[in-house]
């Protein structure tokens, strides 16, 4: 920009252009939307479709919608959406099979969980002396709240956990277990040791070639057959580890992409400083590789959040399964679209928050803050 005033020719041209553009919206319309007969037809057709769509959304979702009632017949009589179904069913949808009177524990748990996550994502808090105690305290309090059995809280087995808290736990478990495994697998695949390389390649390729559903079935139905009698590994834990390993195999390949983008010179420079393999990896290679692959990593983490809904096929009541089950109620099931839109909004909220955060991180990286 600073070069513009120095050029005597550019200044008047820019000055002449600006008022012209502001002169009339009509001119803009003519230039961009109605420049030819064909363009005009296309514009009108698109405008027609858009207006019809928004009119329908307004008509169905707002004008004729029922926002609150406890009587399903009121909804039946209306021609629009029945948002009342969300008020009626939101608790079993959000909290699944968890005992009704204990739902406050889940609300508290989600508040602690979200607070912890938000703090952990904030660069100012990136300090192990703060984060480690934070996670220990919040994990303990979440465990106490979810399980109960102490402090006069009723014990709730994991088979009764459900809804949004279950989705959150599955997702967090996936990422917390999956990311370190992914990094190790990615490093292993490029490791100088042939054994590490072989194990990583076999592991990644074998598990990437299998659908997630198969892994879930193995975790739920096959794995217990190999355990000695009487030994039982919690089903929720088995599933979380299953999803996490699946996640790790894909994420490892993403990180490997980042590793491959590091120029050889970086390794050589580190070697010339006589840094060890782990020093090189931890201080030089990984920080750069993770920065490079950040958009793809985020992409995959968002996908992992939505993948948790696969547990529908093994009978865990995450938010989607719970909604499907609750919407079997014949009195309200006609309004399942509204219920699923609500679930979609919940997923969208978390997915969009994640991608906004990732964009912020990219800005921080670009400005050299991290």
């Amino acid at each position: 920009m600073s070069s513009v005033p120095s050029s005597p020719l550019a200044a008047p041209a820019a000055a002449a252009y600006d008022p012209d553009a502001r002169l009339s919206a009509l001119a803009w319309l003519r230039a961009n939307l109605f420049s030819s007969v064909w363009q005009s037809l296309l514009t009108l057709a698109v405008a027609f479709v858009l207006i019809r769509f928004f009119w329908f959304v307004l008509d169905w979702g707002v004008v004729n919608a029922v926002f609150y009632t406890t009587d399903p017949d009121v909804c039946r009589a209306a021609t629009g959406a029945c948002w009342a179904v969300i008020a009626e069913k939101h608790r079993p949808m959000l909290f699944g099979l968890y005992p009704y009177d204990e739902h406050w524990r889940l609300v508290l748990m989600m508040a602690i969980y979200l607070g912890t996550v938000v703090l952990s994502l904030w660069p100012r808090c990136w300090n192990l002396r703060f984060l480690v105690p934070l996670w220990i305290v919040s994990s303990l309090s979440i465990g106490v709240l979810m399980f109960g059995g102490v402090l006069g809280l009723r014990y709730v087995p994991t088979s009764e956990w459900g809804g949004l808290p279950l989705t959150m736990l599955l997702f967090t478990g996936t990422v917390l277990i999956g990311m370190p495994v992914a990094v190790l697998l990615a490093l292993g695949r490029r490791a100088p040791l042939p054994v590490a390389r072989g194990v990583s390649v076999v592991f990644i390729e074998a598990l990437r070639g299998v659908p997630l559903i198969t892994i879930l079935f193995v975790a739920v139905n096959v794995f217990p057959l190999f355990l000695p009698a009487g030994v039982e590994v919690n089903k929720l834990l088995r599933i979380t580890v299953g999803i996490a390993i699946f996640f790790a195999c894909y994420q490892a390949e993403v990180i490997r992409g980042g590793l491959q983008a590091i120029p050889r010179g970086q390794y050589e420079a580190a070697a010339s400083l006589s840094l060890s393999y782990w020093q090189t990896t931890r201080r030089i290679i990984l920080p750069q590789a993770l920065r490079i692959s950040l958009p793809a990593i985020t992409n995959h983490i968002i996908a992992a959040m939505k993948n948790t809904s696969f547990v529908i096929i093994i009978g865990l009541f995450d938010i989607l399964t719970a909604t499907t089950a609750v919407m079997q109620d014949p009195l309200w099931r006609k309004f399942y679209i509204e219920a699923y839109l609500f679930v979609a909004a919940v997923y969208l909220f978390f997915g969009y928050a994640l991608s906004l955060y990732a964009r912020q991180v990219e800005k921080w990286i670009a400005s050299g803050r991290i």
Partner: protein
Amino acid sequence: MNQTHATGLSVLAALLLAGAGTAAFAQSGDTLAAVKERGEVLCGVHPARHGFAAPDSQGKWSGFEVDFCHAIAAAVFGDANKVRFVALSSQQRFPAIQSGEVDVLARNVTATLSRDTALGLNFAPPIFYTGTGFLVRAADGIEKVEDLDGAAICMAPGSTTERNVAQIFSARGLSYTPVVIENNKQLVDAYVTGRCDALTKDKAALPGVRAFDTEAPGDHVLLPGIYSKEPLAMAVRQGDDKWYDLVKWVTYATFNAEELGVTQANVDEMKASDDPDIQTLLGVIGDNGTKLGVANDWAYAVVKQVGNYEDIYMRHFGPDSPVALDRDQNQLWTDGGLLYGFPMH
């Protein structure tokens, strides 16, 4: 070298076999003792079938099959709430009972020969008789399945219904176009919006569709008649007769209680009855409980806490429930139904 190799292999094989052996033992072992030690019955149920098993507005399991799980818990522990429900998908239900993840399946399982044998199950007496049903538009004038020749029929894939329809139509030399849709709501919507002439589903599910999913229930009729046999029964693992006996007699107890007029409401007065059959049922005389390995008033606990068959049926399919179903075959043999409780002496 080879020697050590072979030894290593045989040790490994023995370990695996031992592992498999103990696992098999755990599965065919004493389920009743395991249940008592655990303190709760693990009952496999449908994740979402209103009327049979589904979480209610408070997230509590409710339904006809859910109540039979409660009945087993009442018989074992004298406390109907000592039961943990495990929601099982159709694919998952049989591995779950085989692997011991659940003690009993009360999950819309049709009792068939191959399930009884090849899948290693034992079926208690059926608790719900149903069959393939057809819902059609009244305006089409269809009165029997023969009138559906050449019709488009909406059905779910991979279900017994799909096979039943093929058999029903080929036996009568009729043709039809299947419209196969996996998702239940899309399936119902396809019929409601007119993509098919008939909707075929389990007979017990169709009145609900007619009442709640169609615009005007009066415009739709259910074809009368029975076109396939679907006896739904509770299933347990083969090879554990003691546990099988208990599940079987809990089922009979609900039938017999209804037959003897013992209801949830009057069971306490009935305890004082001098009818020996009632006294035996409620454990006032005899030692049925000892024979089954539970408390002698086990059937009293079942009726008191869960109800007799009629109590359970009316709670979920009675006239006051959202989906009222006629009892048809699901009434006592004395009323022309198929429920026939074996004598309990």
